[in-house]
C-alpha cells in the first residue's frame, strides 16, 4: 500500500500542521459574529426632562 511508505511522513506531518494552524485558524478567527436581528425593544421608555432655560 503506498500510504505505508514512510518517506514523506515527516513532511506531510509538518505541512498538515502548518496548514491547520497558520492558514485555517487565522481565517476562522477573522470572522465576527453578527447578532441575530430582533424586534425593536419598546420596554424601556426614556424619562422626559425639561430643558432648564436660564
Amino acid at each position, binding site marked *: 500500500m503506498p500510504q505505508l511508505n514512510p518517506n514523506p511522513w515527516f513532511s*506531510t506531518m509538518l505541512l498538515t*500542521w502548518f*496548514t*491547520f494552524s497558520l492558514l485555517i485558524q487565522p481565517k*476562522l478567527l*477573522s*470572522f465576527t459574529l*453578527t447578532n441575530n436581528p430582533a424586534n425593536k425593544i419598546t420596554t424601556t421608555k426614556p424619562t422626559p426632562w425639561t430643558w432648564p432655560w436660564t
Partner: protein
Amino acid sequence: MNLSFFDQFSSPCLLGIPLILPSLLLPALLLPSPGNRWINNRLSTIQLWFTHLITKQLMTPLNKAGHKWALLLTSLILMLLSINLLGLLPYTFTPTTQLSMNMALALPLWLATLLTGLRNQPSASLGHLLPEGTPTPLIPALIMIETTSLLIRPLALGVRLTANLTAGHLLIQLISTA
C-alpha cells in the same frame, strides 16, 4: 494484479514538487477571509453561519472552560470537510487518504486531551477508566481493557479516517472501471 488499484493513493510528485503541498493549501482558497465590514458578501455570510452552526453544536454541552477548544475543533472540522469534499472530484488527490496526515492530526490532539484531563482533574480522568456499576470481580480486567482502549484510540481513529476515505475512493474507482 488488483493491487494496482491502490496506485491512486501514492503521494503524487510532479517535477520534483510533492503535490500534497498544493492539495493541502488550496482548499483554504474556498474559505475567503472576511474583510473589515460588519456585513460581508454572501459567501462569507454563508460561511459564518455554517461555522457558527458547527461551533454551537460542539460547544452547547460544555461549560465555559470547555469553550477554549472551540477554535481548534471548528477549524479541524472545516479543514477536513473541505479536503474530503474536494477529493470527490475526479482526478483529485485527497491528502486524508494518507495515514501520515491522519496520524499527524490524531496523535497530538489525543495526547492534548489526555494530558489536559490528567493535569486539571487527575482523579476524575483516571476514574473514567472504570465504568459505573461494574461488578467487583470484573474491576481489574475492565481497568486493563479501558486502559488499552485509551492507548489505542489515536491509532484507531487515525486509521479509521484513512480507511474510510481509502475505501470510498477505491470503491469509486472499482465501479468506474467495472
